[in-house]
């Protein structure tokens, strides 16, 4: 109960401090609004650019050229032919949505009615809707080509048979020709001459799905501002020491654990409220403003778990700062340099998939990275709770580390 009394008192003080409230609850919403709006605009601008498809033509003859022409004629893709190695480079750099490989012997296979397979390789960062549209387009074109090829072959066969028949003898009746055409059509449907095999690189490879930039702003700023709230704990403890009330609390019949937990709980609760407010804005506010809303309905349990660990880690970090910083300036310095620096490094300001391209594994050293990764995986990539278990464990580990540092260095006498 004494712990709760300290918590309630600190929350009363906090909610009288308009500056801190603005920083905790309003500032993150403003950041999200500006960044989501800007990034959404960038996303919309990209829609008018046709997605590109790289073609590796290993066949190089008539049917292959015809296939490429038909894809281009559809008008929904920009098609460019590359050597195999260049095409892969284009895919790695996300310049094309996929590679269509036309195997050697493609034309011969069609001419001889031997089944052939096209290989469509798409990148993990490609928009799934574009990839699906591409697959359907290819299947449609190859089905037409199959039918065309088989009907032509059939007519040719019938023409040959008619030519070899005794003069004046009618080999094919109208009914028989129609039955033959119908049969060819069904065969083309059941056993297509041209197959499209789709190849998707394994999840967990170096390639990561490119998240919607506007969506990544909400989790990013949530993590940043929840960690920034850690300075509230540090400042609260510093203020208590400065005005002497901490001495009064230490002199009261109250254990050190009760005292510290009482000082941590307000930040923990504030952190949870912060996350709730920011996510509610990310979901409802952005929708009302016509921006891409945060799909929080995708993984409610996962979000709650990340929120609890994020608030816990921030609170523990606050105690660690209070234990290390000796002056108000040091608290401000640590807050400004360390927390914004960690936020930047951990993917709160620049999306992780971009950061990782040039920083490699370095962002992993900050807790922000793991919190951002967990939220990105849940909300943007649509992964399951099991997929973020490592992120949750690492966040818990950081929380424990900060607690240990805080308890080890905390000076109750000063």
């Amino acid at each position, binding site marked *: 109960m004494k712990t709760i009394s300290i918590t309630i*008192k600190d929350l*009363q003080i906090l909610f009288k401090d308009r500056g801190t409230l603005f920083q905790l609850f309003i500032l993150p919403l403003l950041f999200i609004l500006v960044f989501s709006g800007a990034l959404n605009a960038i996303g919309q601008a990209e829609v008018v650019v046709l997605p590109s498809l790289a073609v590796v033509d290993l066949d190089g003859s008539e049917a292959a050229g015809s296939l490429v022409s038909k894809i281009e004629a559809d008008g929904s893709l920009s098609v460019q032919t590359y050597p195999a190695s260049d095409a892969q480079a284009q895919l790695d750099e996300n310049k094309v949505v996929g590679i269509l490989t036309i195997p050697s012997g493609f034309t011969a296979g069609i001419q001889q009615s031997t089944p052939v397979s096209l290989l469509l390789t798409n990148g993990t960062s490609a928009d799934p809707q574009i990839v699906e549209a591409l697959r359907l387009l290819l299947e449609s074109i190859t089905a037409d080509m199959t039918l065309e090829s088989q009907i032509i072959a059939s007519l040719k066969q019938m023409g040959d048979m008619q030519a070899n028949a005794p003069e004046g003898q009618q080999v094919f009746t109208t009914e028989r020709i129609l039955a033959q055409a119908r049969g060819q059509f069904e065969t083309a449907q059941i056993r297509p001459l041209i197959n499209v095999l789709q190849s998707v690189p394994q999840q967990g490879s170096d390639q990561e799905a490119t998240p919607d930039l506007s969506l990544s702003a909400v989790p990013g700023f949530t993590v940043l501002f929840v960690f920034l709230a850690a300075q509230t704990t540090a400042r609260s403890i510093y203020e208590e020491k400065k*005005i*002497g009330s901490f*001495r*009064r609390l*230490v*002199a*009261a*019949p109250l254990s050190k654990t009760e005292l510290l937990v009482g000082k941590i709980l307000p930040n923990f609760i504030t952190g949870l409220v912060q996350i709730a407010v920011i996510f509610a804005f990310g979901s409802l506010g952005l929708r009302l403003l016509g921006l891409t809303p945060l799909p929080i309905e995708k993984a409610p349990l996962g979000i709650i778990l990340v929120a609890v660990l994020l608030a816990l880690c921030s609170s523990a970090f606050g105690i660690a700062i209070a234990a290390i910083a000796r002056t108000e300036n040091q608290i401000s310095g640590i807050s400004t340099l360390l927390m914004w620096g960690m936020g930047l490094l951990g993917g709160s300001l620049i999306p992780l998939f971009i950061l990782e391209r040039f920083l490699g594994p370095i962002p992993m050293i900050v807790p922000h990275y793991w919190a951002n990764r967990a939220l990105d995986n849940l909300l943007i990539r649509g992964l399951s709770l099991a997929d973020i278990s490592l992120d949750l464990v690492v966040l818990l580990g950081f929380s424990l580390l900060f607690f240990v540092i805080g308890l080890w260095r905390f000076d109750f006498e000063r």
Partner: protein
Amino acid sequence: MPAILEVENLVKKYGDFEAVKGISFSVEEGEVFGLLGPNGAGKTQTISMLTGVVPSTTGTARIGGHDIHKEMDQVKKINGLVPQDLALYPTLSARANLSFFGRIYGLRGRELKERVEDVLRVVALTERADQVVDKFSGGMKRRVNIAAGLVHQPRLLFLDEPTVGVDPQSRNHIFESVQRLNRERGMSVVYTSHYMEEVELLCNRAAIIDEGRIIAMDTIKNLIAMLGGGVVYVGVNQVDENILSELSALPAVKEATLVPQPPAPPAPEGKESTTESKPVTASPVVKIVAKQNQQAVVNVLGYLNQHDIVITSLEIMQPNLESVFLHLTGKKLRE
């Protein structure tokens, strides 16, 4: 009367620095005990050890029969602490502050409400109870600070310099509150101050503390009596052992000694100085401890005139705790 507080050879060290150097004293139940000394003498450190804010390096103490090392939980329930700082939350009201500190001591519900109202009456702030502390005057804040240490009805109250930065009216309020708590509720008080007149007014007994040591401890009356009739500092153009022994032998003079330089006259806050002074010079100064101040001055001045010794300065100090401290340490209380 049984002792509520017994302190035995308490020591506090910070590395090589010894802040408290083996302090021993006791406070009886219902007594107001003063710890008088200048800033940095070790008063606050002593209180911090007795209230569990900092652990002692060696030595021990018993409060209400409980050892401060083994039974601090019990000790903390007996103690009330009014720190030197205004240890209050400025954005909360006086009532919210007092309720919070009451809850920290386990008070709840009706009992908490009654205790808060009671201490607000004690410090005469009932009508301002719902105003935020930040809007209060310095004196009113001090009174809330005291109330916060009283809300759980401690048996032993530690008041650490409770009147620092307080206007005379609020100071009188604080004195009256302390006297009433002691008189009507039998509350024992340890009162630290570097204002000798406060200790003289409020305390039955006092310990004079300097550089971490108790240098004198007795009733206020006996401490002042150490100086007999007072002290006179006389600056002269010449002095030797013979002159000093002849001065010591004069009627109404207890002792005459040579001091290197007379101290500046004390000017206690809120009280008219009874000191007469002359400009300080670099000439030798003789310290006369008098049995009777006025007679001693007459005799000393007569002797000096008779022997053609030029008087360069003259300072007469009435017997009080300030002059006792000066006599014992050669320093002023507020140096």
